[in-house]
């Protein structure tokens, strides 16, 4: 106990800010043209969902489940684990979440009520996933290292939160929110240690999703 008191939060950081932000630039370059194609696929599925909620939700779930597998393997396991061994524990969670989303999309009887706050927040989170790359220029970071849906974890997890809120039933929502919320909180804590304000986006995403699911009427 006496020993633990001598640790500061920064003692748990294994890598520098420079290394961290460059991971995204390297991944964007390595996965090209996915940084363009994955967001386009998500946008198409979102537009479809606006016209045909039930089929559109399946399309959204399909796109998000696929890219979760890809991000878990390519970014988290292959690129991030070498600098952060703790990420090795996170990588399999992406596959579990992909499975949960596929299961919920296949077994959900219908789409949730499209006009409910829960569903509106869900679509908002998917839109946030699409515009997430704009955080790079806002934070005066190189656009080449922007975090893009389908390539970087946080916007991908934002879309996973969105899908969780579009699936009907708050209890399903909680099952689907758990893993992305934990992973985004971990990302927020890492960023808090590295660069302070950069912690806000992932934490705000989780707060919005949890609030929308908690405040939703039981059958929305």
């Amino acid at each position, binding site marked *: 106990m006496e*020993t633990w008191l*001598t*640790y500061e939060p*920064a*003692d748990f*950081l*294994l*890598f*520098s800010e*420079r*290394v961290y932000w*460059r*991971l995204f630039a*390297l991944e964007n370059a390595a996965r090209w043209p996915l940084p363009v194609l994955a967001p386009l696929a998500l946008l198409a599925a979102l537009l479809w969902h606006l016209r045909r909620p039930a089929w559109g939700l399946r399309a959204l779930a399909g796109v998000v489940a696929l890219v979760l597998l890809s991000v878990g393997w390519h970014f988290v396991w*292959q*690129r*991030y684990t*070498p*600098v*952060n*061994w703790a990420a090795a524990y996170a990588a399999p969670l992406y596959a579990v979440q992909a499975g949960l989303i596929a299961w919920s999309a296949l077994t959900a009887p219908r789409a949730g009520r499209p006009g409910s706050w829960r569903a509106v927040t869900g679509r908002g989170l998917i839109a946030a996933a699409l515009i997430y790359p704009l955080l790079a220029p806002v934070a005066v970071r190189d656009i080449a290292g922007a975090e893009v849906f389908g390539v970087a974890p946080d916007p991908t997890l934002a879309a996973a939160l969105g899908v969780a809120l579009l699936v009907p039933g708050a209890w399903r929502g909680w099952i689907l929110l758990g893993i992305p919320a934990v992973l985004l909180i971990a990302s927020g804590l890492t960023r808090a240690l590295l660069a302070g304000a950069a912690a806000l986006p992932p934490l705000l995403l989780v707060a919005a999703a949890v609030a929308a699911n908690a405040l939703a009427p039981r059958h929305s």
Partner: protein
Amino acid sequence: MDLTRRAAIAGGLAFSALPSAGRADDSTLRRVPSTGAMMPAVGLGSWITFNVGTDPVLLDSCAEVIAAFVEEGGGMIDSSPMYGSSQNTIGYGLDKLNRPGDVFATDKVWTDSVANGPDQIAESRAEWGVDSFDLLQVHNLVSWRGHLETLFAMKDDGRLAHVGITTSHGRRHALTERIMREHPIDFVQLTYNLADRAAEARLLPFAREKGIAVIANRPYRRGALPRRLRGAPLPGLAAEIGARSWPQLLLKFILSHPARPIAIPATTRVGHVRENKSAARGPLPDAAMRREIIAHFENL
């Protein structure tokens, strides 16, 4: 690497290629009391700075740091399986230099499971690309009893030159002292710098008494000291001992302790490696000057 290892294992003079090798009173060199191995007083850490993953640009930039370190005389490079990809980065840098002889390969064993220790050490060796290490330490005293048994057995078999333990941040000094008393370790690594001087009370004098070589980690408090002291006036005596900057004075302070520690600052910059290496050259402060440096630092 092989040259260094063989020399160290034989308890002879490692770094014999260095012009000044063998002169234990040379301020730029340190002698391991238990084996007589010699090495430069300023080594190189790798925590955070060398954890660059598979980034090709940063791998090359770390390789340049290692190249400058070797060019300036080489010596101890310290790493650990805990430091992400740092061991791999060191292996990459050494490969680029065609495996220079003047590196004292220093790593750690860091796992709760004593049974996993040998596998972890084998993985570390593969990442560094070395046949054996010059020094292996039990990192932060994790499962220290079992790992020390493993390391001493390796040393007895001629598969390891030196055995050590590490702690940092002033933690677990009582246990560290007990291990120093009860086990024939060659090295103890601990935190020692101008702001963190807890080791002066007991561990440093005890290491000297027992003939255990000392490695001072966190010489710059992970960079916080040079940042805090940037722009602050150096004490007048700095010029007398050839310290042109605070980082150099900070290192000279550490190196001048009578226990003759090896300092292992980590850096991402070639300029900083050279500055750190040059801190060992020229005179070191004597006891009165050390007191003056402390007083000056505490009054800033």
